[in-house]
């Protein structure tokens, strides 16, 4: 248990640093800055206290917001993901999710990627909608969501296979 806390604190700090120092400066194709820190919501323990999870998600988002001067956009998207994560999981992993001994080990790769894709999609949709906040710019929003979303997803899949968590 203690180990999990330390690992999650480390993850928090390293993901924030990676996000603000590396990924926010990528500007791939001029506008794509993948938000890789969403992988935190994939790695975070499944059977954890939900209220604490939301608090941590809020803090994670807010920290990145302060760094990138986009006040509370990341926080809003992150806390929403934290809130609806069980629903997305139930959708992706079916009834298995409700069993006590559920873990990522007994899911297929496709299920995990679907789960990650949904998390990224919802996160980016909330982020860019509120960043621009105008119906007139809907095409711009969708363009940003899909372009950035795909890059984020690819990076997240790479990260998840590179550093596969052992404490599930």
């Amino acid at each position, binding site marked *: 248990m203690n180990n999990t806390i330390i690992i999650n604190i480390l993850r928090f700090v390293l993901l924030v*640093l990676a996000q*603000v*120092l590396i990924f*926010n*400066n990528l*500007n791939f194709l*001029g*506008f794509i*800055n993948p938000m890789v820190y969403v992988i935190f919501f994939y790695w975070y323990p499944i059977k954890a206290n*939900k*209220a604490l999870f*939301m*608090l941590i998600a*809020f803090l994670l*988002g*807010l920290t990145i*917001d*302060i*760094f*990138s*001067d*986009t*006040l*509370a*956009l990341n*926080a*809003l998207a992150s*806390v*929403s993901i*934290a*809130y609806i994560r069980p629903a997305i999981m139930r959708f992706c992993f079916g009834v298995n999710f409700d069993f006590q001994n559920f873990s990522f080990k007994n899911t297929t790769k496709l299920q995990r990627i679907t789960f990650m894709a949904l998390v990224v999609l919802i996160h980016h949709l909330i982020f860019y909608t*509120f*960043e*621009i*906040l105008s119906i007139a*710019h809907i095409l*711009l929003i969708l363009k940003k969501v899909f372009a950035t979303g795909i890059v984020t997803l690819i990076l997240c899949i790479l990260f998840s296979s590179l550093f596969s968590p052992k404490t599930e």
Partner: protein
Amino acid sequence: MQRIINFVLRYRNAFLYAFFAFISLVMTIRSHSYHQSKFFNSSKWVTGSIYGTGSDVSSYFNLQEENHRLVEENQQLRKLLFNTPDDTITNSLDSTLVVYEVLSAKLIKNSFNSPRNYVTINKGKNDGVHQDMGVITTDGILGIVENVSNNFSTVQSVLNTKSNINAKIKGTEYFGSLIWDTKDYTVAQLIDIPRLVPLVVGDTIVTGGMSSIFPENVPVGVIKKYDLNASQSFYNIDVELFSDMANIKNVYLLENKDKQEIKELEAITIE
């Protein structure tokens, strides 16, 4: 009462979510129209130092290019110096006659993709920076200082939907407002130029003398394309910016020494 408490306890996560979402929504919507938050911005000590360390490392990668740019600028300034009559130079060194004080700073965080871009620089209160100083690059304008901490400051870039800078067409006195429509980081928009003004694609746009933030005639960009707005009486002009917003390292901060006096006078006049 028991039932209400049970109800709240049962949906406590939903309430918690609503609470967090409400806080972030208020902050987000505030950031669309009001000034940047005083407490949560990247000029603060922790964020500033982390960006400073990051920029110390990454600045080595484009040292050569940056040197080249500085030498080119020096060359231009030398040319100006040698072609100016002697007495103007000695006059301009007289500190009582200097209107604009110039400081230099280094960019430690750049941003040009979001609709509201702020950049962070490595000079703060201790170096004499304060709010509303104009910031320019070697080539053109960059923005206006918004928040200042002891050692760092955040600058509201021209590429910010809240930015509104007085600009005019070079050589004339027709002025308008320079804004940004978020579409392209190389192009800003100049509005409120009356229809009767003769325009040509390629005309230079410079800052106007109406604000005390920038001196008159700081280069902004050139006209890329123009058309009339909905009311058919003013032009909407696309201005291609001189500063390459994606690649800035060294910037200059301008301080108008007469600003206090101008502001006081204006305040009295309005009353």
